């Protein structure tokens, strides 16, 4: 796959690829294909092909800059080889670890969002106010409108930064969680056994 660069230069997509490179290096957030299409005023299919060429050129192990599909768009990041050096100079968005309460709250917002704080509290069984505030401050979740009901509680959703930090192309990449239900079935059976005795 290590094609000589001469072939790429000869490719008619080369000019487009260079423009895309420029757009991506200026961007501070992942750029969706539609935006790249609009900015280059080119054909979506050709943009996709050019992005394919670029991601081959900027891939892990070949370049210090890596082009990746993340958070619903395309973005450059540092190669993992350079992580140590980067760590000496820069801070990651989630440098300090997240507490169990924060992780659970983040999971609920990522999987079920947009959700309100009362909904989060209902699932976790404890108030989520400080966890939510901390995650908003870190930029991992953000406000997403208000509930239609009385009082109109603020709803929260996971941000593109969340997807980037966790290296997800989109929230649909989160693993399915139905597989962990085994334990729960046993619990349900026990509860139902109690219920049967009660009603009998």
């Amino acid at each position: 796959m290590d094609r000589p660069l001469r072939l790429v230069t000869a490719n008619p997509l080369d000019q487009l690829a260079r423009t895309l490179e420029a757009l991506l290096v200026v961007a501070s957030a992942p750029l969706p294909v539609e935006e790249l299409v609009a900015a280059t005023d080119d054909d979506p299919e050709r943009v996709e092909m050019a992005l394919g060429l670029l991601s081959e050129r900027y891939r892990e192990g070949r370049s210090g800059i890596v082009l990746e599909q993340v958070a619903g768009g395309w973005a450059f990041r540092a190669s993992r080889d350079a992580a140590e050096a980067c760590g000496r100079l820069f801070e990651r968005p989630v440098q300090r670890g997240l507490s169990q309460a924060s992780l659970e709250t983040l999971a609920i917002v990522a999987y079920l969002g947009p959700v309100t704080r009362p909904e989060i509290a209902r699932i976790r069984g404890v108030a989520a106010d400080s966890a939510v505030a901390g995650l908003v401050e870190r930029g991992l979740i953000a406000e997403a409108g208000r509930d239609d009901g009385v009082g109109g509680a603020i709803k929260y959703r996971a941000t593109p930064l969340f997807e980037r930090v966790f290296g997800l192309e989109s929230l649909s990449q989160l693993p399915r969680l139905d597989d962990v239900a085994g334990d729960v079935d046993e619990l349900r059976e026990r509860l139902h056994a109690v219920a049967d005795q009660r009603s009998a």
Partner: protein
Amino acid sequence: MIVRELELDLDAFEGPFDLLLTLVLKEELELGDIDIAGIVVRFVERLAEREELDLDACGEFLVLVAALLELKARGLFEDEAAELADLEPEEAAEELARRLAEYRRMKEAAGWLAERLEGERDRFFRIGPAPLAPQPERKLAPQQPDQLAEVIRLLAKEPPVVSLNHMALRFPPVSQFLTRFRALLQRRSRFDFDAELDGLSRAEQAVAFLALLELRRVDEITISQAAPFAPIRVIRTGEESAAADERTTAWTVRSA
């Protein structure tokens, strides 16, 4: 430390915590007979024996004991339990199982996120103020243009002119009152200061008082007052009656 393996030695029960839970769930053990405080004490003792604080165990224990306490409370207060239990037992069990399942799933998800975060430790990328992030839309309630016009009309009305009368206080000369009081004292040996001020403006009253002080300074009059805020009596010098003296003394003594 595994909470379920906690060995208990209570009046009504002896054995591991897990067995107690099972028996309670199967209703083979009356929760009303169980000393829950005893369980807590046992757990705290076990905790104290260990050097480290096991937060996971504490959390699990708290959840279990809270559930036990709630069950016991409902058992002890049947009437209130009836009010709360709008749900059929099957429904309640299903609801509880559903909630527990949901929380369990989210806990799993949180675990996955924690692993993922650890695995992605070496991600470095540029972050900016994200100008492309969509702003949450704030919906406006239905508006009434007529009401808006009404309010704007109120705002557009010329405000009333602010009175500046108090800015230009006109003080009459003190001499005017000196002349007036001296003329008065030629006719009468004494007069009531407050009565003389009747109908004068505040500023004029102040000037009149200055005139009074001036007359006192040059020793043309004696001033007496029965009590603070009582009428001020003005007496021409040399005309003080014994009664007036008495009154002055009385006030001096009272106020001292």
